[in-house]
């Protein structure tokens, strides 16, 4: 009983958040970028303005949280999709072909996993930076490049799960029957294997999404996050870390974005677990 209630609450929260984030430009909010020096470091007033307080430059936290939601959720979703677009075909192919193909491909994947993540991200960003004017011409800005970089950090677990699924489905009776009757290669993949992988892939998406969002927070902490004036929850939380001492004491600066992050991730995990077959 409680589980169903929790699922409903999770869905409700995510939908509200998603709508609020999408509608942020049209909501009656303060400008999230404008700085008001005289209002700096105001504690949240909850019922009066500023509802959720202001940061060190006097910018309204409620607005920054909602705009941050846009970026964090967008990065999370697109990063996960990138991970899946790369990982699922790779893993499905490996699991489908089996034999030496599978072994070599998975061995290669294991080796790539050992490379420290930061080296990889820097390398990617650097390469993409070289071509930034060409990419800007096709509408690919820094945010998009960042998405690709973050997504590519997670293709491996996706590939592994995809491979396991492909292996499992390949042994199913009706698939064996299809193969016995002469179906091979791409038609087999398209008709039987990939559609059957969908449920597991959906769960994978829901479980990878939190990891991508946390990775974005980590990269923001390192200073490699999204570019200003865009804000993300991870960036807000890492900025607020310097406030967790008795001198400053503005705990809401870190508490609010972390709380938002935690609630969102909890909701996603709840839904992910409930969707598991």
């Amino acid at each position, binding site marked *: 009983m409680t589980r169903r209630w929790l699922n409903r609450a999770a869905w409700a929260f995510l939908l509200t958040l998603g709508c609020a984030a999408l509608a942020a430009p049209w909501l009656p909010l303060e400008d999230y970028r404008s700085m008001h020096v005289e209002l700096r470091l105001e504690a949240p007033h909850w019922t009066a303005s500023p509802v959720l307080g202001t940061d060190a430059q006097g910018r309204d936290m409620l607005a920054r949280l909602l705009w941050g939601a846009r970026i964090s959720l967008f990065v999370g979703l697109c990063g996960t999709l990138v991970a899946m677009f790369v990982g699922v075909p790779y893993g499905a192919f490996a699991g489908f072909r089996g034999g030496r193909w599978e072994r070599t491909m998975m061995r290669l994947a294991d080796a790539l*996993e050992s490379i420290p993540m*930061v080296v990889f991200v820097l*390398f990617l960003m*650097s390469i993409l930076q070289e071509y930034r004017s060409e990419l800007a011409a096709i509408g690919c800005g820094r945010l998009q490049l960042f998405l690709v970089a973050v997504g590519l950090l997670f293709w491996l677990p996706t590939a592994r799960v995809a491979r396991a699924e492909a292996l499992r489905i390949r042994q199913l009776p009706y698939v064996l029957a299809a193969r016995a009757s002469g179906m091979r290669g791409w038609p087999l993949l398209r008709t039987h294997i990939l559609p059957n992988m969908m449920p597991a892939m959906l769960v994978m998406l829901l479980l990878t999404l939190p990891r991508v969002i946390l990775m974005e*927070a980590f990269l923001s902490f390192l200073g490699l996050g999204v570019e200003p004036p865009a804000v993300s929850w991870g960036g807000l939380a890492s900025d607020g870390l310097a406030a967790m001492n008795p001198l400053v004491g503005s705990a809401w600066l870190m508490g609010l974005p972390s709380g938002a992050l935690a609630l969102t*991730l909890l909701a996603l995990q709840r839904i992910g677990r409930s969707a598991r077959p």
Partner: protein
Amino acid sequence: MSKRLLRRLLSLLVSILLVHAAAFMMVRATRGGPFDEERALAPQVQLALEQRFGFDDSLLVQYFHAVSGLFRGDFGPSLRYRDTQVSALLADALPISLALGGGALLLALLLGIPSGLLAASRRHRNAGALAITTSTFLLAIPNFVLAGLLVALFSFQLGWLPPAGFGSVRHLLLPWLCLALPLAAQISLLVHARTTETLNSASVRSAIAQGLSPQLLLRRYILRPSLTPVLAFLGPATAALLTGSLVIEQVFALPGLGTFFVQAALARDYTLALGVTVVYTALLGSCTLCADLLMARMDPRVEALS
């Protein structure tokens, strides 16, 4: 068994070589060098430096030097810490990372396994639910947030522990907690899932029906199967733990390996970056190997070293 072990070790070596090559290519392809400063070097000085560190050779020659150094265990001098060898830097950082990671691992096991078992038990349902909730919450916040909260609580509010630094066990307690809690959360969830599954299996149900005491039940039927997925998960997780979380090391000013990863890459310290990558790969491979061996001993159904 030993032939399989040998083959496994060989494949570990191959992985190390592959990773070394890939990392070499990546760090060198990234723009920017280790000698770029705000105050630019005079052209002849820049040239002399590059000659001294062999950057004027072709990339292939440099790679060959790097690989031959790798086989001797010599990564050369660091490009930023120019008066120190990379192996010395790694040797200084490794014990700290081991102490940090090892302690965190023990703590995580001590906290995670019992809480997972508790969560699965029917008698302690409320405590178990609390354990699950805490675990899911711990996995939903970034680790620097957890670090900030713990420092605010234990260092400033209660004044029990120092907020950062390194030198005694007291300095390691908060970092251990920060690293252990999320890991404990994952272990707890894994153990809970597997234990629930085991408890519902036919053999266990019949054992309970026959009146087997809880302690015996735990020891004979539950512990081994529940711990297998933990071990499988622990292999790669331990290596990541050992090399330390960069965040924890930065927040608590601990001189471990994790910081080297990021710093070496950011500063374009090629030799250090390669050294750290190789160490990480070796650790990852060994931890996975150990975990696989342990798993084989605990659960004979698992084919070891396959």
